[in-house]
């Protein structure tokens, strides 16, 4: 085997371009794979991952310190079946006037905790340090905020002054700020906080049962409030969950494309080396040695490329994933976003393995080939093959350089096949990705057809402050505020469907815009009482279809309704009807929110301020510029571009190598009088033919892939996509896609062809 290394080294040196191409392709592909897998990893169950990472509390409970002592709580936690518990921590509610400071104002919950760690609710202390002494405070903030207030002081109404020494973050929002336990006495705590994790945290009822086991031996009424993580999950995960499927589709596509392109380039390298293989065999290399030479030749740049690609991928992935997971909810997931170790392991071990495997297939063919056949194999089309076509082309009125170029690809089906595969793959990928990105963008743009949501009822100090005004009065006041254009009230109530024990949410809507941005996938909107629209998931869960009738029951009241439409919603419990039906079912039930659409140009923040001033029980939230939509559009665009770059590079490289292989032929043609221009035209034509065929195959393939994957993907999360979202193909875009495939092939041929045309013939022939 001693001869293998020098031979491989010499071969690498003689094939600088090819080595560079393999290196470049493995580098970009591996980089793309790292980003793609990182995406798949982060997009799958983002909430669960982040929550598990910080050992988030399944239940946050507040106890009355007057009724139960810390020792009792500790004992109860130990005796219960809780998997882990943290606390007791003293908890105080402090009202800080808005003009006191900029960092911490309003109704604030402060908790005394000895440190950020512990068995439950691990705080990510992302700036500064923990509040170890009285007089210090750590604020609960998302890590994408700036920490520039470190060292500033906060004066509480009681006179206590706290210096900000750190910033921490946890998703469960168990406190707005933390201080050292010794500080708490001065803050006059009103509650004692306990944080629990349970082995079975699958449902609300399970969690309730677990909590009652904990409290069973405690004095009655000791538990004053509790909150489960399921509510949090519902809020936070919603956006990410809705887009996870698209992001994952992109990720998988990236992996598949990268692997195929690497395989393509690597096997191309081996095939174009057949003649060299024959020579090695003639020299006395054993078949095993020949395979070894080729594997070494291909593996060295590939492994280097993979290693560097992993590095590049990691560098790129961080800002990329942060960008993808930016937004009101997703920002909370920042910490869980990043490249998991398994992704790097897959990239570092998997990609070189793919390269070697891709090289092994043609190399093993070379292994079996006789030396004589190998010498001619690289260059010898079998007699008769493509003869008819060549003849037909030669007989046409096309300039000979064009007809010759058009016929060339058919003479070497092996190599042309690889080039064609690269083009088809590239065009199909970009087509698919474009469709996916378009749907994703449209999906993101649906909904949220209002500017400000005004919640009736505001949470303050762990208590709900009810509005002072009645429903109708609030509605009128909100309409009367400057800027308001349309107001829709929304209320919901838990109800049952006759014949089912699963509770459903019956939502009643009243006002100007009862659709609230929901997207109808089938049927029509409800026009009057007794008509409802339901989410696809709801209908599926209950085995219903548009047109079916059902009975909704609440207590002893029953309403007979007809499903007239199906909406694109992932909430499987949701049933939407009009206000009279809602109140018939639940008389006296009030709206939980008012959705306000503003006149063009009105300032949402100003409106929200005005709404807050109307009633202390109102909590207006500005929907703002829809940042999650921006995130989706941005990430879809980025991913499409990334895939397009990898695909384009794959096509380009294949074509460059293929053209490069023909250098000797080009020299020969020049020796019998072909002009440099003719040489260029011929080469570009030959690759252009492949580009055209590849595009013609690739575009429909990409569309077919989209048609196959898209509905299934939506189906998996119980969504039916309306045609307005899936009708993404425009003739203009498709033409552009097809042309881009052709353009890349032509460019990939043009550059080396021009180089070859410029070469003096003596050089071209001499090098052989």
């Amino acid at each position, binding site marked *: 085997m001693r001869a293998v290394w020098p031979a491989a080294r010499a071969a690498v040196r003689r094939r600088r371009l090819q080595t560079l191409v393999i290196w470049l392709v493995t580098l970009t592909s591996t980089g793309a794979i790292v980003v793609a897998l990182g995406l798949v990893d982060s997009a799958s169950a983002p909430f669960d991952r982040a929550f598990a990472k910080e050992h988030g509390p399944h239940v946050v409970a507040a106890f009355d310190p007057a009724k139960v002592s810390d020792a009792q709580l500790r004992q109860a936690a130990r005796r219960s079946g809780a998997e882990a518990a943290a606390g007791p921590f003293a908890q105080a509610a402090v009202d800080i006037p808005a003009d006191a400071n900029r960092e911490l104002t309003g109704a604030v919950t402060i908790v005394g905790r000895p440190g950020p760690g512990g068995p439950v609710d691990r705080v990510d202390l992302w700036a500064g340090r923990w509040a170890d002494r009285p007089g210090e405070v750590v604020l609960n903030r998302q890590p994408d905020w700036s920490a520039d207030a470190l060292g500033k002081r906060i004066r509480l109404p009681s006179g206590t002054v706290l210096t900000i020494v750190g910033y921490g973050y946890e998703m469960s929002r168990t406190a707005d700020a933390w201080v050292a336990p010794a500080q708490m006495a001065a803050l006059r705590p009103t509650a004692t906080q306990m944080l629990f994790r349970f082995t079975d945290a699958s449902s609300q009822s399970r969690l309730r049962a677990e909590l009652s086991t904990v409290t069973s031996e405690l004095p009655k009424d000791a538990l004053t409030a509790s909150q489960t993580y399921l509510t949090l999950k519902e809020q936070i995960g919603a956006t990410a969950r809705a887009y996870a499927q698209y992001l994952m589709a992109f990720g998988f596509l990236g992996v598949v494309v990268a692997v195929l392109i690497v395989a393509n380039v690597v096997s191309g390298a081996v095939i174009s080396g057949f003649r060299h293989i024959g020579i090695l065999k003639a020299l006395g290399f054993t078949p095993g040695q020949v395979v070894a030479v080729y594997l070494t030749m291909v593996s060295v740049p590939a492994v280097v490329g993979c290693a560097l690609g992993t590095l590049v991928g990691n560098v790129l992935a961080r800002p990329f994933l942060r960008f993808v997971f930016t937004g009101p909810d997703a920002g909370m997931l920042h910490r869980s976003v990043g490249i998991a170790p398994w992704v790097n392991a897959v990239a570092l071990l998997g990609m070189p393995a793919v390269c070697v495997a891709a090289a092994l297939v043609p190399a093993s063919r070379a292994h079996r080939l006789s030396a004589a056949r190998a010498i001619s194999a690289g260059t010898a*089309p079998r007699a*008769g093959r493509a003869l008819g076509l060549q003849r037909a082309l030669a007989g046409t009125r096309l300039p000979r350089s064009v007809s010759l170029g058009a016929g*060339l690809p058919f003479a070497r089906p092996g190599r042309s096949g690889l080039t064609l595969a690269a083009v088809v793959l590239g065009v199909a990928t970009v087509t698919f990705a474009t469709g996916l990105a378009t749907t994703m963008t449209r999906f993101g743009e649906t909904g949220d057809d209002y500017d400000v949501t005004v919640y009736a009822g505001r949470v303050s100090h762990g208590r709900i402050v009810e509005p002072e005004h009645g429903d109708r009065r609030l509605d009128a006041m909100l309409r009367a505020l400057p800027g308001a254009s349309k107001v829709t009230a929304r209320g919901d109530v838990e109800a049952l469907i006759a014949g089912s024990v699963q509770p459903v949410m019956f939502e009643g809507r009243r006002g100007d815009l009862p659709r609230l941005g929901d997207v109808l996938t089938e049927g029509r909107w409800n026009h009057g009482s007794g008509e409802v629209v339901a989410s696809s998931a709801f209908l599926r869960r209950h085995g219903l279809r548009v047109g079916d009738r059902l009975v909704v029951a609440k207590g002893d009241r029953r309403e007979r309704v007809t499903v007239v439409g199906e909406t694109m919603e992932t909430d499987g419990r949701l049933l939407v009807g009009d206000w009279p039906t809602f109140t018939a079912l639940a008389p006296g039930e009030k709206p939980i929110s008012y959705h306000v659409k503003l006149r063009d140009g009105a300032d949402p923040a100003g409106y929200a301020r005005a709404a807050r001033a109307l009633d202390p029980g109102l909590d207006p939230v500005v929907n703002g510029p829809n940042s999650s939509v921006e995130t989706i559009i941005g990430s879809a665009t980025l991913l499409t571009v990334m895939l397009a770059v990898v695909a384009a590079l794959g096509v380009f490289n294949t074509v460059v190598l293929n053209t490069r292989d023909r250098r000797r032929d080009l020299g020969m043609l020049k*020796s019998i*009088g072909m*002009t440099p221009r003719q040489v260029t035209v011929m080469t570009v034509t030959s690759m252009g033919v492949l580009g055209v065929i590849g595009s013609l195959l690739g575009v429909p393939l990409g569309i077919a892939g989209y048609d196959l994957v898209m509905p299934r993907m939506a189906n998996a999360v119980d969504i039916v996509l309306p045609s307005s979202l899936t009708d993404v193909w425009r003739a203009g875009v498709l033409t552009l896609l097809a042309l881009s495939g052709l353009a890349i092939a032509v460019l990939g041929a043009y550059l080396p062809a021009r180089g070859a045309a*410029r070469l003096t013939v003596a050089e071209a022939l001499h090098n052989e």
Partner: protein
Amino acid sequence: MVTDDSGGETVVRLDGVRKEYGGTTALDGVSLRIRAGEAVAVMGPSGCGKSTLLNMISGLDRPTDGTVVVHGEDVGKLSEKGLALYRRRRIGMIFQFFNLVDDLTALDNVALAAQLTGSPARQARRRALELFEELGIADRRNAYPAVLSGGERQRVAVARALMNRPALLLADEPTGALDSRAGEQVMDLLLDLNQIGQTLILVTHDEHLARRCASRLVLLADGRVAGEHTLEPSA
């Protein structure tokens, strides 16, 4: 097959031609005259510059210094396109390793040369077939180069070289890759061509073959002309 039968006219004139590749000097001041209808054999040890000399004449490469004039045209001054047209019209080349286009059949390889000058395919094929018949390879016309024997390939190459009735036929060790019998056949072919007036420059290692078909022998050594001999035409 003769384009110029004015016996004594000088077709090729080299004056002080030098060619350097990086550090190596392949030709070092070569001056040479070749008249129409002559058959000149160029001999010398390997690496002495024989192929380079042919490349200068055929315009496959340009001299570093000196002039190459063929049929009154200063080859070194032609543009790339001009060189291509020059090769098409005036030069036919035969190489040791045939240099056929692997992707084309034997006949199309030959027809290609004419098609480059603008001949319609049908006419080019007809002329190619004539040549194939003359050279005794008509039955191999639809075969690809890879399945032809060395002798057959070289005859295809000769046919291609003759396609445009070149003023000058250049052969670079045309028998170097052939066994002696196939080599003889190719030599006979060249001799026949010369006898009907084809000007021929032939690079060879084989003195016997040189004597058989050349009228003049040019000896090259280290890029210089080391001697010239007029040969008696052999019987």
